[in-house]
């Protein structure tokens, strides 16, 4: 399955939910915010949110800023 994470194409070998994705792509899941195809997915919905072919996922978090 091919999806895009933060603008970069990624290949997933098996079906994955958002919890799996965050665990494998982020150092820690705290303060990670997910937007799937333009819709914000709250962390309590990650386990039941399955990724599908062609999905565009954004993983964002806080950084320094003025």
């Amino acid at each position, binding site marked *: 399955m091919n999806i895009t994470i933060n603008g970069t194409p990624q290949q997933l070998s098996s079906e994955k939910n958002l919890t799996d994705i965050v665990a494998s792509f982020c150092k820690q899941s705290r303060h990670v*915010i997910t937007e799937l195809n333009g819709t914000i997915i709250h962390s309590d919905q990650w386990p039941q949110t399955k990724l599908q072919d062609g999905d565009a996922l954004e993983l964002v*978090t806080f950084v320094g800023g003025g």
Partner: protein
Amino acid sequence: MTDSPLVIAGKSFSSRFLLGTGKFKNKQDLRDSIIASKSEIVTVALRRIDLERHEENILEYIPKHVTLLTNTSGARNAQEAVRIARLAKASGCGNWVKIEVINDSKYLLPDNQETIKATEILAAEGFIVLPYISPDLYAARALVKAGAATVMPLGSFIGSNLGLKTREFIQVLINEIDLPIIVDAGIGAPSQAAEAMEMGAAAVLANTAVATAQNPVALAHAFALAVEAGRLAYLSGLPLQQSLAKASSPLTGFLYDDVSAN
């Protein structure tokens, strides 16, 4: 002399200095600078996670008692600012947002019109909105109407350390707008922060000056002192500037009453 707290959207703060968290050389400096600055509100930004480089989470270095103010940097229009604000809220880290809409890469000047649009939408959704603008009376009035919690006029270009180049226009906002006026951007030295406070600004925000100082922690402390000093000066009722001399000593001669006899 006692001061009333800074009140934003019903929340009281004893510090009138806000610190930005960008550009610090390391996270330890950031944490120590926040503490030294006595800031109770700090700004942060939101960005895509770098999938290659696993960076440390900045929030781990921000003391828990501090109110997080997420900026919408990177937004080029109202729609993008709204998107960033909603993402920030989804993190569960509060709903305070500094609207920053910029589509000019040379001067980084905020787009007031788009900022007003974003403020309207987000305030209606229950966000506490602190919009960053070029100081303009009509824009500020529109922001009051739109439900802004403060108005944050720029002192000069972001990161320029030029100080209060827009001084007279900020004074107009202080005089006319019934919301806390927080001077943001371009504040490069504690003396400039004190100047803004002496004018009657409710608070000052600085980032670049502190973060890029040789000793950020010491400068953060200096800013805290300057903001307090400027505030106290404002509350004391500063005398007006005069264009002619007025003697501080008695206007008689040293030994004779007639000054011209000297």
